[in-house]
Structures are given as structure tokens and as C-alpha cells.
């Protein structure tokens, strides 16, 4: 009986987390853009209305965008936390700064790293610096 109750509760939680709310007046209905565990999202929008996001996933920092008309993602770092994304309006490049646990000094110690798509091969190829 207890197992059934636990299963029912888990099923209910899944249903609640999967069902979007109805759209608010003047807004589109919320859309699930990636079904995975993400946290710490940071967002910018460009002049064409495309959205660029940096989020923390289970396996690192991910970049999400809808610039092609559908949502795509690419992993830009295999570790890190607390990403911040910014758009350089002079050359339309994107930069993501994030924290990486130092691990060498002391607990909680971290350093800042960044990646950019300002790359010799052209935009869209992320390079870690």
C-alpha cells in the first residue's frame, strides 16, 4: 500500500512538472525548451529577437538558443557553475563567464573562466580561454 502511495505521489509530481500553465494575456504559452536538469540560467536577446542562454546542466555549462527557429543546445564547458552570458553588440559575439572550483586552495575557493564564440573559424565555434 505504501509503495502504491509513493508511486502515485511520484506520478503526480511528474504530471505537475510537465504541464505548462495556460498563457497569460499578451504572452505565449510557456514552452518546455529542454527536458533535463538545469539550474542557474542567464539570458540575452539579440536585435533579431533570438534568445541566447547559458545554463548549468549535470555535465557542465550548456548554451541554448532559438536563433535557427528551434531550440538547440551545445555544451561549452564540462564543468563550472553560475554562468553569465553577454552579447557584444559591436561584433555580435557571445561570451559566457562562469565559476570553476579551484580545488587546490581551500573549500569553496573558485576561479573565473570564460568562453566566447569570437573564434578565428567564425561565429558559432566556442573557444575556451
Amino acid at each position: 500500500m505504501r509503495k502504491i502511495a509513493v508511486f502515485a505521489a511520484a506520478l503526480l509530481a511528474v504530471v505537475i512538472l510537465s504541464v505548462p500553465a495556460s498563457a497569460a494575456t499578451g504572452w505565449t504559452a510557456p514552452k518546455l525548451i529542454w527536458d533535463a536538469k538545469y539550474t542557474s540560467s542567464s539570458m540575452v536577446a539579440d536585435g533579431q529577437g533570438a534568445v541566447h542562454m547559458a545554463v548549468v546542466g549535470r555535465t557542465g555549462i550548456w548554451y541554448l538558443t532559438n536563433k535557427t527557429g528551434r531550440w538547440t543546445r551545445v555544451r561549452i564547458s564540462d564543468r563550472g557553475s553560475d554562468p553569465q552570458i553577454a552579447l557584444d553588440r559591436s561584433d555580435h559575439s557571445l561570451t559566457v563567464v562562469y565559476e570553476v572550483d579551484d580545488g587546490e586552495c581551500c573549500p569553496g575557493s573558485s576561479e573565473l573562466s570564460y568562453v566566447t564564440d569570437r573564434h578565428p573559424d567564425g561565429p558559432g565555434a566556442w573557444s575556451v580561454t
Partner: protein
Amino acid sequence: MVVRDGVIAIAANVGLYDATVVEFITNVAGHWTHWDISGRGQRQAGEPSLTLDRQGWPIIAYQVHGASRKADAIRLARGATQTGSFATERVVAMRGATGPSLVLNVKGHPRFSFDAADGTHQAKRVASGWRVGRVWRAGHDSQLRLGAGGHARIDGLRDAPTKGVWFAKWSSGNWHRVRLDTRSSHEVAMAVAKGTRTDHIAYTVGGRVWYTHSK
């Protein structure tokens, strides 16, 4: 974090052994340098929000926790990286003041949202000084953006007045609030594209990322 003409500017919360301070970090002139903004004497500073003025000089809003919540404050620092100096002023002294989100309006004057014990507020620079007004009597993690024409938008009125993701827009002399989702989210990001009227908001529910935008 702001990137302009390839130069990265960051306002960071730096933890020391016995204090947290705010630093400004940039790679101007090709190498990384950093400035102490809040001062080592200010032992509990943090949550910085950075923007650059038209000349490219940094402006940073940050919180300072007092000995008691009554003494909490939001300070604003203006810097000139050529001289390495920052001038700071206390803009808000309010119980529980935290988490400023800073922008410049179309005239280049700073304004920021922040959370306090009695709700979500906005502070803006006016000719006579600073004007502070309450947006709503509850909410957490507010973020301020300016849309086309410089009209303010605030999201992060989390669970206020009832559970969910809320968005507030200043229009016709009042804040108008709308609930975007009935589910609670602790991770909300907002963006407004320059020159457009569209507000974009992404938020996580149970770790999944949801997205909506204004029509």
C-alpha cells in the same frame, strides 16, 4: 557581466577568509586587472549588478549587510578605470535590502530594482536625488530591464501575491502585474532585445527549462 568592443567587464562577489567584498574585473588593454569596490573594511558586501555608461565607465550596484537587517543597504559605485578609483554612495538604507538589478535609462541615469523585507522596490535617479518606490509588497529575486522607450519591466516577483512566476511592467503611471506560470520557480532569467518590444523570460520548474515571450 558586460562585453563591449571585445572587452569583458565583470562585477564579482569575492569571498575572503572573514568577509565578502565586491570587485570589478576587466581585461581592458589586453590583460586582466581588478579593483576593490566595496573596500576591505566593508565586510559583508555582495550581489553586485554591473552596467557601463555611454563612455564605458562601470557603474555597480551592490548590497551591504549591516550588523542587523535594519542596517542593510544598497550602494552605488561609479568608476573610472583610467584612474583606478571608484566613488561610492549609499542609495538605499532599508531593512532586508538585497539583490540590486541595475540598468541605465535612455538618459543614462541609473535605476535598479531590489528586494527588501516589505517587498520589491525600484530606485531611480532623479534631478533632486534618488526616488525609491515599492513595486509590490512581496516577491524575491527581482530583475529589472528596460524595454523599448525605456519603460521598466521587473520579473522575479516570485510567489507574489500567490504562487507562480510573475512579471511587472510600468505603464500609464502604474505597475501592471501578470502571472506567467502558476508553478513556482526559483530560477528566472529575463531579457529584452534592444530596439524591440518583446520581453523574453525563461525559468526552471523542477530543473526543466521553460520559455515564454510577450506577443
